[in-house]
């Protein structure tokens, strides 16, 4: 059956913090149903404590054609990275 419900993108935040992470997409008739579907589809294995859903059509994304002017200039700016500090061994996720 072909669905004419709009596409939603789903973001889930894990129980130990960090950020909301994109986990996938789904179809739903409205925002509320999208949230419920996201709960059923993407938190079945105890993955999350918080869900965001957003209509895919509402996302403005960068285009592959603009890859070079968008991202290439940052590749040679080593001074922008915090590589000149000593990081303690027990600090993860840097």
């Amino acid at each position, binding site marked *: *059956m072909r*669905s004419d*419900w709009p596409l939603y993108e789903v973001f889930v*935040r*894990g*129980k*130990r*913090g*960090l950020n909301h*992470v994109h986990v996938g997409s*789904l*179809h*739903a*008739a409205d925002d*509320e*149903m999208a949230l*419920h*579907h996201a709960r*059923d*589809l993407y938190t*079945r*294995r*105890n*993955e999350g404590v918080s869900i965001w859903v957003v209509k895919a059509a509402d996302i403005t994304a960068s285009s592959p054609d603009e890859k070079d002017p968008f991202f290439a200039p940052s590749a040679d700016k080593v001074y922008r990275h915090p590589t000149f500090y000593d990081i303690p061994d*027990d*600090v*993860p*996720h840097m």
Partner: protein
Amino acid sequence: MVFDNAYEAITEENDSRWAFGTGFTDPLEGVDTSVPSGVDAGELEAYCLMLGDDALVFSHRLQEWCTNAPELEDEVAIANIALDLLGQARLLLARAGERGEDSYAFFRGEHEFRNVRLAELPHGDFGELIAALLVFSTWRLALLRRLTESRDPVLAAIAAKGVKEVTYHRDYAAQWTVRLGDGTDHSRERMAAGLATGWPYVDELFTPHEIEVSLAASGVAVNPAESRAEFDEVLAQVLRAATLDVPEVPGIPGVSGRTGRDGVHTESMGYLLAELQSVARADPEATW
């Protein structure tokens, strides 16, 4: 969970650091599983079978929607609900007695199943499914909430786990009831027809069996008649939001007053059990 520093919570030794975690919990952890004093083991067995069979049989009906749901997303939602109920059934049948959950599920005859007839009603359309799920989960939630106070700590723990699950089931059904009832003329008609199909089996849900009465008196079980007012209130609220009327259809009485709780079922029950039990009966020694 308390840690000496913020990073300890997300180190290798700590399972809970996983953003997409495992973190399983055993609902019966630390619970005294001996039969409470003064409780008749036979009555406790019968009561566990009643609540367990409700969940097992309705779960089977929900499983029949796998590959048949109107949308992929709802198929997963319905399967989740079926799995929740199957989990409740396993705990309750295991509590019923030494015979074991598989033996109860696969090697009892139709007359030995004590589920209410609403749980076994044949696979209908989506409106019938949502109506049955709304009625079943509203009734069961009211019952499980009261059962969390049971004098049997195992039943209380199973009920506490179930309350969280069935709250969501009821919410899912209520959302669809409102969506269909307050939708198009066609969806409204189908939702109303679904309610009318299941409604004749509502009175049975609140008619206590003598074992429920006896165990309720000793604080182990719940007398389902107590939650009728709560059920009526919730249904009225949902149906009002759905712009639907509470159905006025007469109940279908049992045979000489005997219904599902007495092992007297509708015609479709035999077919359901034939499918549910066929594999286990074809190869009783099989393990998997």
